[in-house]
């Protein structure tokens, strides 16, 4: 098979090779297993970098690197293996590869059940990347579920003391969402007879999307979908919209579906937290932008005010709750809740600027939250607890670690010059037009984010050194190696955000074109 012509399949499925190799290795060969895992995650990373710089045309609005083949064919029921990326998904695929690669390195300390651990980790990579690239709704659903299972085991077996509770909560929550999604997918299939996520690859090259359009292209009477097609007092399209929205909102997570996140983060081992915050949450936002909103444009336009309110609640409420935490990891988890609110707010704003901010935030939060969780992991490995009030003055003992933490925290609070600033500022600039009040309230979230992060630095790092921790070793070279790529990304996209925005812009433009009622 030619790698360049099947690039996405290679990226997605290469970890399978690693899984098989790891399965064949004896479990005593720990170094060898780690090595295989590194290779199996490094190759997709390399391929995704190739894709970013050479394989992908950043100026195009179309789906690229498409692969299409029939997969399941049973009469009218046709499921395709249909993958492709555009500016929205391509950076996220690359980010996934990077996060998993770093995740393998961050898992160096794990000694128990190494074989299963790395196999599951690589399976997770397949699931995530598959979800990002699939353009067939059924395929999307399959990958979505593939991703769920390894996560459950990774939290449930290698997690902290309350891991079983956290894992089952995570699993049930997400499963509840995906059941709704399945219902919606099946409903769409019944109406339109197809599973394509978006039809802007139609033979005619028409930019059509949404349920109504899908139905029209199949010459099915859209009566079912319009005002007459009511179901329990709501238009049919609204049902589809809400089913998809809840499914993805759980993943984002949107208030009030967010409580699985702190539990899962606190119990998950560090690399899993990194992946969870870095990329899994993005799947929710990505799903909304890729499927949830364009499939039901009229409903979205009807309810977007409500979504903006939810986004604002996420931002402000997440920040306030984070401030009230004493567990370092829980604090970072709630900061994720707060940051993901920008994605929802920007998506609801439906302005070019706001959407760019939202999509940018997805990527940037991936890097900055990864840094934060790695930072927490470093401290937890040494002190074996995460109580924020139990530290103090660590800067004296661990100056380099303190420096990295400061960088990570400032990246998270949106300091200009670091990537988070652009996404937050663009989201706020973009959403001020339609929602001035909500944007001003979100400004409070910006303030609170700075407050709790700096307060954390103050409690943990500054002040007189707690004598209990006078012998902690400073951050190691391996840990710096894990941090460095994210720090570099934060700085690079903070200084030159255009590098990323130029890739996102065409996708945002074609996304906006899919909403007929806009402007």
């Amino acid at each position: 098979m030619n790698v360049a012509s099947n690039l996405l399949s290679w990226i997605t499925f290469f970890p399978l090779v690693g899984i098989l190799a790891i399965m064949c290795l004896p479990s005593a060969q720990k170094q060898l297993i780690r090595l295989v895992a590194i290779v199996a995650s490094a190759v997709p990373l390399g391929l995704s970098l190739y894709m970013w710089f050479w394989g992908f045309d950043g100026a195009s609005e179309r789906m690229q690197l498409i692969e299409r083949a029939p997969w399941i064919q049973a009469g009218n029921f046709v499921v395709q293996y249909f993958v492709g990326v555009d500016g929205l998904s391509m950076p996220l695929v690359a980010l996934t590869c990077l996060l998993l690669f770093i995740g393998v390195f961050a898992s160096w300390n794990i000694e128990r059940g190494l074989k299963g651990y790395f196999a599951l980790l690589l399976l997770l990579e397949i699931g995530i990347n598959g979800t990002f690239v699939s353009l067939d709704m059924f395929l999307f659903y399959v990958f979505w579920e593939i991703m769920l299972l390894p996560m459950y085991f990774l939290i449930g077996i290698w997690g902290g003391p309350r891991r079983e509770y956290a894992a089952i909560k995570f699993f049930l929550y997400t499963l509840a969402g995906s059941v709704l999604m399945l219902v919606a997918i099946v409903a769409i299939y019944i109406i339109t007879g197809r599973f394509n996520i978006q039809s802007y690859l139609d033979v005619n090259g028409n930019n059509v999307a949404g349920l109504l359009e899908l139905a029209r292209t199949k010459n099915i009477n859209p009566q079912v979908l319009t005002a007459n097609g009511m179901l329990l007092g709501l238009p049919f399209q609204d049902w589809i919209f809400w089913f998809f929205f809840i499914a993805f909102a759980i993943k984002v997570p949107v208030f009030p579906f967010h409580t699985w996140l702190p539990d899962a983060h606190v119990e998950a081992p560090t690399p899993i937290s990194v992946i969870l915050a870095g990329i899994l949450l993005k799947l929710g936002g990505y799903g909304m932008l890729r499927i949830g909103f364009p499939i039901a444009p009229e409903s979205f336009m009807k309810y977007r005010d409500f979504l903006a309110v939810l986004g604002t609640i996420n931002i402000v409420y997440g920040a306030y709750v984070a401030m009230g935490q004493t567990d370092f990891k829980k604090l970072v988890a709630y900061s994720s809740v707060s940051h993901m609110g920008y994605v929802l707010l920007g998506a609801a704003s439906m302005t070019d600027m706001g959407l760019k901010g939202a999509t940018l935030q997805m990527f940037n939060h991936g890097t900055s939250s990864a840094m934060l969780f790695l930072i927490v992991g470093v401290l937890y490995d040494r002190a074996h607890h995460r109580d924020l009030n139990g530290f103090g003055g660590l800067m004296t003992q661990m100056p380099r670690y303190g420096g990295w933490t400061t960088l990570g925290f400032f990246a998270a609070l949106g300091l200009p010059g670091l990537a988070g600033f652009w996404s937050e500022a663009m989201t706020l600039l973009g959403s001020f037009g339609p929602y001035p009040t909500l944007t001003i309230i979100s400004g409070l979230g910006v303030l609170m984010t700075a407050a709790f992060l700096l307060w954390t630095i103050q409690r943990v790092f500054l002040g007189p050194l707690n004598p209990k921790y006078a012998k902690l070793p400073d951050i190691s070279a391996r840990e710096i190696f894990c941090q460095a790529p994210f720090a570099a990304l934060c700085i690079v996209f903070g200084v030159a955000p255009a590098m990323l925005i130029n890739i996102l812009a065409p996708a945002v433009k074609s996304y906006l074109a899919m909403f007929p009622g806009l402007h």
Partner: protein
Amino acid sequence: METLFFILFAALAIAGSLATVWLRYVVHSAFALMAAFLGVAGLFILLGADFIAVSQVLIYVGGILILILFGIMLTPPDKKERSVKRVLGFGIPVFAIVGGLAFQIGSVVKWVEKPDLPIPGPTAAPIGRALLKPDGYLVPFELVSIVLLVALIGSVFIARRRTMQSIGATSQAIGGTSQAIGGTSQAIGRASSAPGGKS
């Protein structure tokens, strides 16, 4: 002449078979079996199947029978094993049923003599061609050879002398795996009961 030989060989085969069933000692039975095999081989020759006849002698007499003899030698003699009552109790009904069936068949089926039967000649070459022709029996032939190989390896493996310890270790390993599986399912079971327990 041919009838004479037929009677001779048929008698040999039938007598050998009966003796095999009847004789008390295994070794004797084995030699009676040899006689039966040889009789059948003779009948094959009479039927013009020279290749089969030779195979019969080589494989049955030279191979299988020797194997059986080895088996006999490696196991202790069991003089009290034969019970006349059992042999006759089974033998008479079986012979009656088979005989009755044969009679019935003979009376029901109309045997038609084929008019132009070929004169029997050497069969080794045609059989060989039939076996190796792609549209003939090539595939079954190859399959059979694989079966033979597998049987060979398998019998060597099975008959290999093993100590009880090694068998014990294997079974332990299997038990360990199942225990691990049990552990995992236990963990899942605990996990699934957790939220309820919490609330």
